[in-house]
């Protein structure tokens, strides 16, 4: 008997930040949308306040071989299940700056975006209104043009005030950090209680993860979200000119096929190229959308350094948001950091802290054991302050996602193999930030100051957008150059990283792309 194939207008692979926004937009435009999420279902009521429990939100799928001089920290920086990585994101939502879009033209380094800030501005404005971004546009001196924030900023607690005096003594400016967190009740969502549980997922809906904003809208408009539905292959027609849908494996181990007018890959920047490469056909022997040979290239991360200090005062570091209380972007000018360093950086200041887990303060002094560790924990719980630099990581073609030739997942799909290192100029920039950060803490009056090694924060690139189909994977809408009805969404599209957190920008890009698809 012939199998009846299920047909929809749009299939979206992944229920994270970009996928959920696009699902909402397209379903509200009247399209039949199905989201296929590889991970398990998570409800807001599942988001238990525990750093141990929060590990359930991190990646729990097939392993990724994470290699290179500076691994991207895949298993910590990504997530799986409803809302994807965004369910545990910290909701620091600054905009990229106009100069981030033309780094190659302006400085002869990195790549240019195929769009400029002005192309995204209205999308930033719309998304921030829907999401309820909290901030203070007046004091955010570096902020690109745009509508004022719809909500007042995060309050500044003791930790923020203590660190800010160090900035001010050195002539540096601070402002409240813009957060995708409601500082007061907004559109049916509660206001944040500033208790620092962002990493464990916010069960009260104050933090704009997909469970709080766009997934409910998508479902209300008729989109269907299928969990434990792992896409194994993108299908194409016999001519190889169009995508026709996907194959996916459900929890019962059965392979199903979903036919769609448009296919949107909205998994993370490692899994999207993996799927493209694993879907090679005779028409696309290098993998789908890969006539340029650039699928998987230019994987990026932000090099990041955390500064720590012990102060005589009580820092009340348990208060606030995990992303921080204050922002400084005085280091954003790209070519003012000496000959060796290049790029933009920002400070995220006074993060709410927990004692345990990878970013907990037990781990900020990894050399302490025994009674010394016990004494430090007692002191740190009341007197520790911290801030973190987010530095631009230049795109390198040698940073790649490739398919393993030796290892496969349970569905027979080759595992992703990732290799990453930071450009020398990016590492030098991170070191500049370390030097400045330690001076700031000394000026603030810290009794003891130290800093972390350079870490990888965020994952971007791997399916970059561009005007030239010979050197990029998609156009500025995430539409692949090779297959006009195959789209990519998310931070994988970024040709450069800027020196800011990526989530607001990937929302703006997804909004712009959804407009295009809905009005095609």
């Amino acid at each position, binding site marked *: 008997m012939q199998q009846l194939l299920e047909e929809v207008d749009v299939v979206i692979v992944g229920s994270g930040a970009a996928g959920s926004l696009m699902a909402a937009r397209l379903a509200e435009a009247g399209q039949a949308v199905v989201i296929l999420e590889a991970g398990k279902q998570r409800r807001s009521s599942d988001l238990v*306040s525990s750093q141990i429990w929060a590990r359930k939100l991190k990646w729990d799928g097939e392993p990724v071989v994470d290699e290179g001089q500076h691994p991207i920290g895949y298993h910590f920086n990504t997530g799986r299940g409803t809302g994807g990585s965004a369910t545990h994101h910290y909701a620091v939502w600054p905009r990229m700056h106009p100069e981030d879009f033309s780094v190659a033209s302006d400085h002869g380094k990195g790549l240019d975006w195929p769009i400029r800030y002005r192309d995204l501005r209205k999308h930033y404005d719309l998304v921030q209104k829907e999401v309820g971004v909290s901030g203070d546009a007046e004091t955010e001196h570096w902020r690109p043009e745009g509508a004022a924030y719809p909500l007042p900023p995060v309050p500044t607690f003791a930790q923020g005030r203590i660190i800010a005096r160090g900035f001010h003594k050195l002539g540096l400016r601070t402002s409240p950090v813009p957060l995708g967190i409601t500082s007061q009740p907004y559109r049916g969502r509660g206001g944040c209680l500033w208790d620092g549980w962002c990493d464990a997922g916010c069960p009260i809906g104050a933090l704009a993860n997909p469970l709080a904003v766009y997934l409910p809208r998508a479902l209300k408009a008729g989109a269907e979200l299928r969990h434990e539905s792992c896409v194994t292959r993108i299908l194409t027609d016999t001519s190889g000119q169009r995508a026709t849908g996907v194959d996916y494996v459900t929890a019962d181990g059965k392979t199903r096929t979903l036919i769609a007018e448009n296919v949107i890959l909205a998994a993370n920047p490692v899994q999207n190229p993996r799927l493209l490469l694993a879907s090679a056909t005779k028409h696309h022997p290098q993998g789908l959308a890969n006539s340029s040979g650039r699928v998987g290239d230019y994987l990026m991360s932000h090099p990041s350094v955390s500064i720590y200090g012990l102060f005589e005062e009580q820092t009340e570091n348990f208060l606030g948001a995990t992303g921080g209380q204050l922002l400084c972007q005085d280091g954003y000018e790209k070519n003012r950091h000496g000959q060796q360093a290049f790029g933009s950086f920002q400070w995220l200041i006074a993060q709410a802290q927990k004692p345990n887990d990878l970013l907990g303060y037990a781990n900020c002094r*990894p050399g302490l054991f025994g009674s010394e560790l016990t004494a430090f924990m007692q002191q740190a719980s009341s007197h520790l302050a911290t801030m973190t630099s987010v530095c631009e990581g230049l795109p390198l073609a040698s940073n790649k996602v490739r398919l393993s030739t030796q290892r496969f997942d349970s569905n027979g799909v080759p595992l992703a193999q990732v290799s990453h290192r930071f450009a020398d100029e990016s590492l030098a920039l991170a070191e500049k930030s370390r030097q400045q950060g330690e001076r700031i803490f000394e000026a603030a009056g810290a009794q003891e100051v130290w800093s972390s090694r350079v870490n990888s924060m965020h994952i971007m690139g791997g399916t970059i957008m561009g005007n030239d189909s010979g050197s990029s994977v998609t156009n500025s809408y995430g539409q692949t150059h090779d297959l006009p009805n195959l789209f990519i969404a998310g931070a994988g599209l970024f040709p450069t990283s800027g020196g800011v957190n990526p989530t607001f920008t990937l929302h703006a890009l997804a909004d712009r792309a959804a407009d295009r698809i809905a009005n095609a």
Partner: protein
Amino acid sequence: MGSLAFVVGNKTLMLTPAQARAQNIPFQVLSDKHALTLHHVAELTLPGSTEAGVVHFIDQQLSRPADECLLMIRYLGIEAPYREFYLNALVGFEVSAQQMFGANFHALERTQAQELFNQATRGDPSGWQGPPAPFFLFVLRADASDVLYGTQAGSEALSIPYMAHIEPSTNW
């Protein structure tokens, strides 16, 4: 801390790690010898963590399917299953104790155990086998911090409010 499911015979008991320790619940993965070594290494790593039940916590987590394991090692670049990582490191402590002092780790004089431990924080001790010793102690330190400080009782001990939205009373 939330309760964990400890299997005893054909019964499943919901206990905190500290309760499991106090009730001497049998281990699922660790041998008694492994557990004894882990107990002594953990107490040198973070005093109080053994009373809080870190040995039972690790044993219970290692007994679960890899994708349900909540030990921090899951995002430190080590592929599941994780039991070999722990067991090999514990064997490493035993081999080094024998080579350095001719005795089992748990039977060492306090100064001897501390000397071996201190070496392990800096590099592989004499005769060491298993994963890099400093990395194992980084992982164990995280587990000990989870059990001792990552709980409502731990917050109280640090004189900070826990402020849970949803209290961790569920079965991990």
